[in-house]
């Protein structure tokens, strides 16, 4: 026997192994129950499958478990850690949520390890051992398309408590990219427990720490400014040592725009010596925008977290009713050191209960995102529920306070939190709902406001969700409510201006924008958004002079704003200054090669000038920059048609009509292209549809007449031309066509 501990325990353990032999692992073994287990045959397969992803040389585990000598050296610890289920780290209870990539060791495997350790740890025939996976130091998915590195490595002290650090990695490109996979190489894997990657759309954390962001920012929890637009492109970007590469599901890449930052929110455990965290993030692009758009939502009860010192069973609960059908893709339960029992479940409208997750012995060190093996379908009306229990007694070894003190919600690790984040994908969306994520956001924010009626973030987000659904009057009322709490807030004034503009109250909108410009702090980007919106409003009301003034004022404050540059171009174009306009569009593209307005307008200019080649180049870029903009496809179709590429034109028009099915003009254009391609019947049908949408289109009636005349339906053709002339008596072509119809051939 190698150690005194095992020697002393031997009689007891042998007895256990003996009595256990007919069950568990031994029963599964090919050999008789009494046959000796060996590392090669029995143990290496278990360790390689369940442990070696971290426990390999250079891996995140503190020691390697690749060789027989390793297993023998660490056998007492392996035995202990598997018996207690400390390792492999896996918190959810089996049977309460069906997760992918479950790391919980099976009971037979645990029994197998125990038997091997207590029967002398024989090696067996080394040749019988399975081959080892290759853990090398290169990127797992091959060379990334882009590697982001921290500007300044962070040095973790050798001792002290755990450290929570936010490392900021600015996205350096000037084009939007979709990310299909990400790999994080933290630099010192053995001290990095886990990391959350947060997309900071507005680089807000960096701007809050203008002079010292490069060394990272302390803090466990993070609130970043999502910007002014509803942008629910939200993913769990959670990294833990055994999954260095995060590959997104098919159709669900995430997006990085110019000006975004990635924030690496990492949990570090001191190792005894100073460690250098020289993190790198490898990004893998895909040209395809997402075809499925999930959203994150959270059940949470931070408002009720006020845990008395010594209370070993403090409970908070929350619920949220789903406003639409969803598939739940993943769950991320989160608390700090006092969290103990964490339950999440769903009650369906038919009364059925589906478990989301249950953790009976929470441990912040082993937290994780859990992805469901199959998406969990929850119909509209399902109530999501959470119940978290906290232990603030001295008996909780994780308690950061000794003796315990009263603890409330907060961002520091010694504060507490109670969140159950869920990633959901809306499904079965009714045709009248343009973006079901807005319904979810609205329901979520309304629920938050029930709990904390004066929460400004919730008010702002609720108003934005309402505005996104076109409920502008309601949105304006919610903004007004927020302004009562936070009078003179430039951003809310700006957003309220946009809501009022949407509600058709454009003069009131102008007032709000002007108030926002007044209220905005001077300096960086102060008032830029309000000026931009005001200028755009003026542009839409053909007040080109005022728009030009506002865009120029905005560019003085924010000279790098490509959208303001292209807006100025539009104002100049409206004022008839075509050359000046074109120059501004080109300058906008220098700032952002993907600026939609600039691309669209430069494409139009080229197309109007009879230069389809450059027009096509610009318009193809415009339609890929904003694939949902029908006007880009429409103009691109026109440019293709100029080159005689009628089938390409037809394809673009069909996309445009799919995006804007009630746009009569598009159906009319479709009719003309179909006619030119000799598809008269379809051409006729499209023209009919166009006239159903816009019966007062004289050109449309004339075109319909021409199609009918060519089909020798003379009477119907005559009626159509006459209808055109009734609408527009001076319609020369209709008159000429009618005359031709009357002239015998």
């Amino acid at each position, binding site marked *: 026997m190698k150690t005194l501990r095992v020697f002393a325990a031997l009689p007891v353990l042998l007895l256990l192994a003996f009595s256990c032999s007919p069950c568990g692992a031994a029963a599964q073994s090919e050999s008789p129950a009494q046959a000796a287990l060996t590392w090669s045959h029995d143990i290496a397969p278990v360790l390689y499958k369940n442990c070696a992803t971290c426990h390999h040389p250079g891996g995140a585990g503190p020691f390697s478990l690749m060789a027989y000598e390793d297993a023998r050296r660490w056998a007492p*610890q392996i035995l*202990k850690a598997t018996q207690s289920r400390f390792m492999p780290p896996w918190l959810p209870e089996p049977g309460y949520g069906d997760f992918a990539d479950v790391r919980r060791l099976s009971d037979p495997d645990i029994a197998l390890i125990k038997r091997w350790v207590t029967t002398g740890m024989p090696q067996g025939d080394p040749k019988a051992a399975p081959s080892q996976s290759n853990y090398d130091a290169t990127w797992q998915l091959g060379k990334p398309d882009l590697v982001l590195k921290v500007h300044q490595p962070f040095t973790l002290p050798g001792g002290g*408590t755990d450290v929570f650090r936010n490392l900021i990695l600015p996205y350096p490109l000037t084009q939007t990219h979709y990310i299909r996979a990400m790999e994080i190489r933290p630099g010192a894997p*053995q001290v990095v427990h886990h990391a959350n990657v947060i997309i900071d759309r507005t680089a807000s954390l960096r701007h809050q720490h203008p002079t010292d962001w490069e060394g990272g920012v302390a803090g466990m929890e993070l609130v970043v400014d999502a910007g002014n637009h509803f942008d629910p492109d939200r993913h769990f970007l959670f990294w833990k040592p055994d999954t260095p590469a995060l590959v997104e599901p098919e159709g669900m890449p995430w997006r990085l725009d110019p000006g975004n930052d990635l924030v690496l929110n990492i949990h570090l455990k001191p190792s005894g*010596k100073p460690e250098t965290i020289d993190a790198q993030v490898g990004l893998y692009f895909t040209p395809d925008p997402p075809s499925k758009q999930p959203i994150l939502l959270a059940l949470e009860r931070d408002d009720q977290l006020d845990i008395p010192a010594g209370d070993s069973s403090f409970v908070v609960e929350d619920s949220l009713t789903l406003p639409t059908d969803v598939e739940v893709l993943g769950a991320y339960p989160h608390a700090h050191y006092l969290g103990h029992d964490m339950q999440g479940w769903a009650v369906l409208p038919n009364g059925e209960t589906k478990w989301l997750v249950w953790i009976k012995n929470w441990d912040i060190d082993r937290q994780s995102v859990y992805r469901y093996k199959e998406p969990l379908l929850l119909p509209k009306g399902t109530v999501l529920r959470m119940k978290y229990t906290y232990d603030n007694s001295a008996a909780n*070894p994780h308690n950061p306070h000794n003796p315990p003190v009263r603890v409330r919600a907060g961002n520091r690790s010694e504060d507490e939190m109670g969140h159950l984040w869920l990633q959901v994908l809306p499904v079965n969306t009714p045709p009248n709902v343009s973006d079901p994520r807005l319904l979810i956001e609205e329901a979520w924010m309304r629920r938050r406001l029930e709990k904390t009626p004066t929460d400004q973030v919730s008010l702002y987000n609720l108003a934005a969700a309402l505005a996104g659904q076109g409920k502008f009057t309601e949105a304006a009322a919610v903004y007004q409510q927020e302004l009562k709490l936070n009078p003179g807030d430039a951003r809310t004034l700006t957003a309220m201006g946009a809501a009022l503009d949407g509600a058709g109250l454009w003069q009131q909108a102008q007032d709000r924008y002007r108030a926002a410009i007044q209220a905005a702090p001077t300096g960086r980007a102060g008032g830029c958004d309000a000026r931009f919106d005001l200028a755009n409003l003026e542009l839409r009301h053909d007040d080109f002079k005022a728009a030009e003034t506002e865009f120029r004022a905005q560019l003085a404050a924010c000279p790098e704003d490509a959208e303001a540059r292209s807006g100025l171009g539009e104002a100049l174009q409206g004022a008839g200054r075509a050359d000046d306009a074109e120059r501004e569009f080109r300058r906008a593209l220098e700032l952002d090669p993907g600026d939609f307005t600039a691309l669209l307008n430069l494409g139009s200019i080229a197309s109007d000038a009879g230069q389809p080649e450059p027009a096509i180049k610009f318009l193809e870029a415009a339609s890929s920059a904003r694939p949902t903009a029908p006007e880009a496809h429409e103009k691109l179709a026109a440019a293709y048609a100029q080159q005689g590429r009628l089938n390409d034109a037809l394809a673009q028009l069909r996309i445009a009509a799919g995006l804007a099915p009630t746009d009569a003009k598009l159906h009319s254009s479709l009719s003309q292209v179909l006619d030119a391609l000799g598809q008269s019947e379809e051409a006729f049908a499209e023209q009919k549809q166009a006239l159903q949408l816009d019966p007062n289109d004289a050109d449309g009636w004339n075109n319909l007449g021409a199609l009918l005349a060519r089909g020798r339906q003379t009477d119907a053709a005559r009626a159509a031309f006459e209808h055109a002339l009734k609408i527009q008596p001076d319609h020369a072509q209709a008159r000429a066509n009618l005359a031709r119809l009357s002239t015998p051939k």
Partner: protein
Amino acid sequence: MSRFFIALSLLLTPTIHAFAGAPLDFGLDLRGNPIHDLGGPGIHFVVLIFAATDCPISNRYVPEIARLNKEFSSQGVRFWWVFPNSSDNAEVVAQHNKDFAIHENSLLDISQATTHRANATITPEAAIFTADMREVYHGRIDDRYLDIGRERPQASRHDLELAISAALAGKPVPQPGGPSIGCSIVFLQK
């Protein structure tokens, strides 16, 4: 199990562990020289920290031992890192000491005699001996680790520090409040 040994060592301490005056080797220093005396002039107590260079919990205590050394070295207390595992040879330990900036003395317990004398079975584990090599404390450094995988954010009871302070004050030495947690020492086959 550890508790069993703690009890044993307490029971046997007065008789077995009195080595005063015996000509003994305690192990080798990193240059391969035998160490005959762990104390020396002016040393009242010797503190041994049993460690393994590849044991993560043992390594995490390096800053704590540096702190205690700083606190007590001027009061006649001498700290030793004792490496009982045969894989921790002079070269490995020298590199380790460099990596972890360890300034305390290091002892390679190649025969594991010192380890047996202290009744150490785990790394990290501490022992306090009087100048005449009577063991007055054996056990954990503090209560940060309650078990493998059960860890406090920071220690709430600094057992070793309390024991050294009491020993220096001539008071009864408080014994550890719980078992040592860490990596088993790899004992030599006999």
